[in-house]
Each structure stands twice: as structure tokens, then as C-alpha cells.
């Protein structure tokens, strides 16, 4: 599958990415020379033991953190060349984020939160598309509510909608279902998968949950800052087996 799309420009890409925290004896290498491509319209899961560098990998590709060496690209844009303002603009337009918790601005309504990146850019966005997204995540009747009036699952759905609203090149989600019960978790995952299948959205998701990862087209396994396994069309069982072999 990956061979057939070789000619297509990856949505995001890491080339020889190294990320070291601290220096000298205390230095921790969170990413050790990692290269990876994320293809458009694909749902990729990243798994690995705690401290293996999953979040670091995501942050570095998403422009939230800088690499110690190597290059990260969103589409054709090399992140290392960008100053804070351009980088911020890139995050606003080309990247979507879904965090584990505290995804929403408490003073804004659900709808305002959804269009926040667009509004920050002074854009109205594509209203039809946004309506479509809102309907897809099933939030039509919750639009005027503030985050404190929404359940955890609803909040995460708002976060998904926000990530989709600006039609970014790629969406990064760090344990988006980590704080949810299994029902709301699978709901959120289903929406993410639909976004990929129906809207052609690219999504990269970090997760500890094998069944969550089984929603993806592809699973990357990280250990000690290395990609140790790259699995296509995963199933929960295969994922669990691989995890065991890594030793987590």
C-alpha cells in the first residue's frame, strides 16, 4: 500500500530526527535518528512504552517543539526554517491538535472553540464544511454550551471538530481518548476514522490502547527513541503481540 503512494507528497515527514533533552551525563535522547513519512488521507497510530518518545515525535513534527538535528516537514514546509510567527500561522492553518484533556478554552462556547483557529486567522472558513463537521460529530444541539457544560466525550468531540474545521494538512492527537470511558472513547475514534475515510483527512494519533490503535491504517511502534516496527492494516491482536515483543 505504501509503495503505491510513493509519488504522493507526504502530509508530514521527519528526516533523521534527533531530539536530545539536557546535556552531558544527564542528556536524554528522546528521538534517536528517526525518519518517517505520514501519507495524506491516512490514519496513523503511534504506540510504545511510556517514555519511548511518542509525544516528542509528535511535538517535533507538529512544530510545537524543535529538533536537535534533522528536519521536520508539514507538506512542503520545512519547520526548522520558520520563526515563531510563521510557525504559529502554520499550526493555525496546516495542523490540527487534539490533546488528552483541557482541549477547549473555557470562556468560549463549543462553536467558538470549533472555529477558534479560523477566527484567530481572521478567517470565516467554509461554513458549509464546518456545518458538515458539526453534524458529523453530532454537536448541533450543544453549540452554545461552554466546555464546563459538556461531558468529557463531548469535549473531545468538540476538539476533533476544531481540528477538522480548518481542513489542516494533518491532525495530531496525543492520547485523545486517554481520559474517556470506552464508550465515548470509541465514539471519538469512530469520528476520527470517518474524517479520514470521508474527508480524506490525515491523522496521527498517539495511544496506549491497542483497540484504539486498531482503528488506524497503520501503527508505528516506538521504543527508546527508535521506530521498532511499522504495521499496516493492524488488528488489536497483532498490535498486542507486537507490544509484548517490544516488552511493554
Amino acid at each position, binding site marked *: 500500500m505504501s509503495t503505491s503512494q510513493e509519488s504522493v507528497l507526504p502530509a508530514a515527514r521527519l528526516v533523521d530526527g534527533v531530539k536530545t533533552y539536557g546535556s552531558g551525563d544527564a542528556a536524554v535522547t528522546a528521538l534517536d535518528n528517526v525518519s518517517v513519512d505520514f501519507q495524506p488521507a491516512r490514519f496513523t497510530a503511534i504506540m510504545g512504552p511510556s517514555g519511548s518518545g511518542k509525544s516528542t515525535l509528535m*511535538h517535533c513534527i507538529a512544530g*510545537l*517543539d524543535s529538533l536537535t538535528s534533522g528536519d521536520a516537514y508539514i507538506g512542503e514546509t520545512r519547520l526548522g526554517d520558520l520563526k*515563531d*510567527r510563521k510557525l*504559529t*500561522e502554520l*499550526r*493555525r*492553518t496546516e495542523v490540527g*491538535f487534539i*490533546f488528552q484533556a*483541557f*482541549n*477547549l*478554552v*473555557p*470562556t*468560549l462556547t463549543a462553536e*467558538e472553540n470549533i472555529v*477558534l*483557529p479560523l*477566527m*484567530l*486567522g*481572521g478567517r470565516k472558513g467554509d461554513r458549509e464544511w464546518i456545518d458538515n463537521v458539526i453534524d458529523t460529530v453530532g454537536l448541533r444541539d450543544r453549540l452554545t454550551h461552554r466546555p464546563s457544560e459538556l461531558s468529557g466525550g463531548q469535549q473531545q468531540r468538540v476538539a476533533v471538530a*476544531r481540528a477538522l474545521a480548518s481542513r489542516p494538512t494533518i491532525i495530531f492527537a496525543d492520547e485523545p481518548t486517554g481520559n474517556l470511558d470506552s464508550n465515548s472513547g470509541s465514539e471519538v475514534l469512530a469520528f476520527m476514522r470517518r474524517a479520514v475515510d470521508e474527508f480524506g483527512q490525515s491523522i496521527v494519533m498517539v495511544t496506549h490502547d491497542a483497540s484504539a490503535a486498531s482503528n488506524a491504517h497503520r501503527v508505528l511502534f516506538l521504543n527508546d527513541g527508535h521506530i521498532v516496527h511499522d504495521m499496516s492494516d493492524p488488528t488489536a491482536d497483532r498490535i498486542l503481540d507486537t507490544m509484548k515483543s517490544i516488552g511493554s
Partner: protein
Amino acid sequence: MLRLALKGARANLGRLILTLLSVVLGVAFVSGSFVLADSLRSIFDQVSEDAFAGVDAQVRAVGNDLNSSNAEVPRFSDEYISSIADLPEAKYAEGGIFAFERAYTVDANGEVVRPTGPPVFTGSWSGPSPVSSFRIIDGEAPVGQQVAIDPIQAERGGFTVGEPVTVSLPSGELETYTLSGTIDFGEGGTGGAFFILFDLPTTQHVLELEGLVDSIVVAAADGVSPETLVAAIAPVLPDDLEAVTGAVVIGEQKEDFGTFINIFGNILLGFAIVVLFVSTFIINNTFATLVGQRTRQYGLMRSIGASGKQIMQMVFLEAGAVGFAASGIGLVGGFGVAAGLKKLFSTAGGEFPEGPLEIRLRTLIVVVVVGMGVSLASAVVPALRAARVAPLEAFRTGGQPVRPLKVRIAFGSAVLIPGIALLCWGMFGDPGGTSATLSAIGFGGALTFIGVSMLSAMFAGAVASVIGAPVARLRGVTGQIAQGNARRNPKRTSSTVTALMIGLALISGVAVLTRSILDSFDEFLSESISADLFVFESNQNLEFSGALVDKLQTLPEVDQVAGFSPLEVRVDGDQVRATGFDSVTGTSVVNMGITEGTAAIGTKGLAVLDTTATELGLNLGDTVTVEFEDGFTTDLTIQGIFDDRSVIDADWLFDRGLTREHRITDAITFAGITFTPGTDPAVARAAVERVTGSFPQLAVQDNTEFKQQAEDQIAQLQIVISGLLVLCLVVAFFGIVNTMVLSVLERTREIGLLRAVGMTRRQLQSSVRWEAAIISVFGALLGVVLGVILGWASVIAISDSFISKTGIPWGQLVTFVIVGGILGVVAAWFPARRAARLDVLEAISTD
């Protein structure tokens, strides 16, 4: 426990320093007030002692024991000088006579040489006797046609010793004297006043007070005690003169200055207390927020065995440390404040005598007590709250539950209602005595402000939404986020802006009062005065020669002239407030509101104020016995009854034709002029000014100028008062900085999120600043509204002839609100930058 508390203090050093600053400001002001008053007291004590250094006894008119102005000093014959000097107990006796603003030196260009502010003092030279308080710096003592002046005046006028000096006399005539030397007063320094000294006979001539003295100072013969001297002098004196020892005079002088300095010091202290009061809100807010943020930490400590009392002690220790540090810094800062206040007042026209600043033990104690007290008192509620934190709180996740406003509303009302009652009692009721009234107003005001501050939390959110709406509309999502944050924590919003609210309430109150006085003055001018021009002494409204009226009357351009002369008379044996005026022309220049009879009372009649007449049961046509200054007694008939004393400032009116004969000097304080119909006002004015030209101290003004001058004076007063109140705004500024820092810190995670999803640094900064602006405008609006109410109430409370209507200075009030908003924006500068510089990843991952 102490270590923990200090650790807590260290961890929050930044915001504690801001809190500290707000306390320091108040404490420094308190200490500055004391330092300044103490220093002034020392200086003036020294001045008093210098002035009477060699004086063993002083002879003066009975009742002349106050440092009164020349109009009221009962003078007496100089013939007693020689009879006292002849006593064997006396070594030396010398008469002295002094007056302010009567004579001036004139420079080569014909310009009068005078200081701005302090007076020009004309008097008799009493050196080189042992009783002299003057010192020769250069040259010699003045004798006969000679004059001695202070060196500053000599320099300003370009006068040199041995050369002639032109002196302008009270009559307006010019005379030439020779400068014999320059002189200095006491240990040096004249407090900015100018001195013109002659020998006694020449001074009497210059002041038109021939044969009279104010007092006689006496030095005792060797071996004679002051008491013996006084006893020996007494038999020589008539009943209305007395002799007292030098010590008594010095004591009286000190007391006299002391009273003034006390009033001055207390006014400053009043401002200091306001600033301190305002700063308690900042401290309270800081500790309340800190305690709130540390709830989990306290819960953890409780769960590992700390008692609630220990937690409370920790908060108090922290507050005590802040108070202690603030006291120390404030004490030192007090010197700066004292120096600054000296500057402020000297730019406002006054001039302070030179002298070192001094600090007394009392100041030290008060400052420490006040600094610590204020900090600890503000921490009481937060400390109690901290003590009540349950161990379980350690395990609560998520943010702080927002406590309902019920308690706050109950407390606020419980404070506000008695506050308003007390305030009203102080303003409209009669608590008895000035200090009781001021206490009632002070405490009532404080309670009212506390109450309003607490209750304002009720509508802080809603008002912030309204104020923020245009921001949200204009600034898009940045404004929307600012608006949302501004209304997020109404309690904090209301506490934060309390300092601003109080500061602006007082400043707007003063503004309303000022505008009301000016408007009333305006009304008074148009209703009570019909003169085209006024003539008066420009510095302190002192007297000038009544002969001017006659000279002006001869001008063809002038239709009517009336002079007004304050009188010392007794009516049926009682001292009364009386004015002599030219009754024939008087009503054409002023309107005293004759209700019965006529204003043209003539030399055999008088007019009386309606309320006085009622009080005494007098009617038109009744006769009263009047005794004048010179002892002349006559019966006069009531020819008129009037009801408006705003211009003439007297209950009794006499004809100047009569009173000028029986006044020691024919002097007036005010003349009104109307122009001959058909005359060009400019021409008429020029003619008047040609006549007044020889009276350098006189100002000639028309209605507009008169109004302008009054406006300038009142505006200056307003500037001084507001200048002092601006300190409240400085405290408020620190408070806003503090709150914004705390809020930004609290919202670190949210800020990280906003940055992650694409908010630029600039947008973030702008939203923090807008938030502060919205909060501040809320506080400013609240303050201005309160200020208008306070100002309006004050106008009603002091409603008098000089303040008869309420004026609202809209322009100023709008400016205050804008200034409040700008204050907020500037205060948010640092917190906003700080927010913008947060590392996105770190911010997102904080908890």
C-alpha cells in the same frame, strides 16, 4: 513553620514584591507625613526661638497674642517705649511695627520686586540691640532715609548697597531711600518672604501709622529675671496693654505654628490613610488568590498532619513578613515622600523653609505598627479560609470550585448599609465637633467603599460583558477571549479594581465639588456683581489705600466707584462683622439684595443683614449705638435690610464717608468700578490702570479675568488634592499588575492551548491587555459613579453661599474612565509579555 512560610514567600516572591510595593507606598506616605510635619515643627520652633532670642519681655495690646494679620493687630502709642526703657530693670526697650504687602521696592524698569507666593514684609529694624531677630549680612542698619532689604530681593531688583532704592508706599506714591545694607532673619532664611526694613519713625511714616507700634520688646538689665522685669513694667502700662516674658511669647509662637503644622500634617496623614486603606484591598486580593491557588498544597499538608492552626499561622507569617519588609522600606521611602511633598507644594505656590528632615521614634513605631497591622489585617480572611482547607482537597482534581456569592453579598450589605448611614450622619447630621464629623465621614466612607467593593462582584461579570462587547466586536476573537476572561472571576475582578475605584471616586468627587464651586461662583458673579472692573490686592486680599476711590472717581471714563473696607466696630457693645462702603455708588457695583429700605444709608445710617436683624429683633428705623476703632461712639439708624452677604462679607454695613474718619488708616480691600455709558471699555480700563499703576500690589480685573483667576486658583487646589490621590492610582496599578500576573499564571495551560492552535504572541498579548482594560474600565466607571454621588452629596452637605449648585464635569469624568482603561493596559504590559513568552509545550503540560 517559619521555614515553610518563608519558603512559601520565596516561591511567590514576584507577586509578594508587588504586594509589598502597594503597602510600601501607603507606609511611606504615613512616614513622610510625620517626617515632614516633625521637620517643619523643628524649623518653626527654631524660627520662634530666633525671633525672640534676646527678648526678656514683650509689651503688647491685651488680646494680641496671635500672629494676626495687619488688619486686626491692635496697635498702641509708642510713648511707652521711653517710659519702659527708663525703668532700672530694663536694659533696652524697642518698639516694633510690621505689616504685610504695604510697601514694595521698585526696580529700574519701574517694575515692583516681589516674590510669587510668600508676602512682602515691611517693618522696623530692631538691631543691633540684644532683642533683634535681624542680622546684617552686608552694609549697615537703616537710619532715617535708609532702607535695608534681604539679599534675594536686592539681587532680583538689582539694588546695591549705598545706591538709591525706589519704594512704593501704601498710598501709591514713590519715595527714594538709600540701601544701607542687606539683612537676614534669625538663623538665616526668610521662608521666601521679602523684607523691607526702616528705622521705627520711618516705618511708621511708610506704613501711615505715625506714633504707633505693634509691640515693645524689652531686654532685662543684668541680673534681673524676666519675671521681675515683667512685674516692673506692669505698673507703667494702661489696662489695655500687657507685659509677658519672652518665654511666653516663644511658647505662643510655637503653639501657633504648631496648630498650623498639625492641621497640615493631619491632612497629609488623611491622604496617607486613604492610600493605606486602598492597599489593604491589594494585599487581601493577593493573599486570597494565593490561598486559593495553594488549596491543594494546604490539603496535602493537612493530610500529612499539619493542623489548621499551623496553616493559618503560615499565612500570617507570610503576611507579617510582607508587612515588616514594607514598613522598613516605607520608613526610608518616607524621606523621599517628604521631599517630594515639599516639591509638590512649592510648585503649587507655597514655599517651605529650608531645614533637615528628621525622624522621631514615634514615627518609627507608628510605621511598623501600621505596616504590619495593615498586612496582617488584610490576611485575616484568607488565613481563616486556608485553615479550613480539608485534607481531602489534596485529592481534588480540576480547578477550584467557584464559591457562591451569597456570603459576599450578605457581608457586603452588612457593611454598606451602616457605612452609608455613618457617612450621611457625618455629612448631613451633626456628630458634634469637627473631629467627630471627620471620623464619621472617614469610617462611613471606608465602610461604604468596602461594601460597594464586595457587592460589585454581583454585577462585575455582567458589566464586564457589556464593556467588553465592543472590544469583542472590534477585536474579533482576541477581544472575545479578553471579554470572557474579564468576566470569568467576578470576585477577583471586583477586588482588583477596588483600589482604582476608590482612587477615582475621590478624584471625581473632588472634580464634581470643584466644578460645583466654579459654577456657583459663576452664578454669584452674574447675580451679585455688576461692576465692569474690580480692583484688589492680588496676593492675599490685603488692604490698600482708600484714597484710590477718590482718584478713580475723578476719571471721566468712570461712572461709579465703590470701595469696601472691613471694620472693627462694636454695635451695642458687641464686636460684629462689618464693612464700610460707598453707599451712594455701592449698589451700582454690587448687589447685596436690599429687602427693605435703601442701600444709600448715608453717614447717619446703617444697613443690617436680615437674619441678624431678626435675631436681634431690629427693624427699619431702629437706632443702635456703634463704637468705632478709634473709640468714637455714635447712634445710627437702620436705613436698610439686605439678604446677600456673598460679596460684602459682613452682617453690618456702614457708609465709608463715616467709617474712613474713624479707622486708623483709610484702607479698603476691594473697589468696584462701572464705566461711563458709551465709553470704550478698553479705553476706560487703560485710564483706570494709569491710576492704579502706582499701586503695584493691585490687580485690575474684569468679570472674565476675575472668574479665570478664581478658576485657576481652584484648579490648582484640585491639582494638589488629585496629585495626592493619584497615589491611590499607583497602588491600584500595582494591584492590577499583580492580579494579571496571577491570572496569567493560573491560565498557563489555556494559554498553551491557544498558542498551540494558532494564536500568535501578539494576539495573546493583546487579549491580556484588553482584558485588563475591560476590568479597569469597570473599576473606573464604578469609581466615577461613586465619585459623582459623593461629590453631589458634599455639595448638598456644605451648601453655602459660595456653593449653591451641583456641576458635573463631564469631560473630566470621561477622561478619568479613559485614564482608568489606559492604566489597566499599561499594568497588563508585563503580565501580557510574560504570557506571550511562555513556552507552548511547557504551558500545555503544566497542571
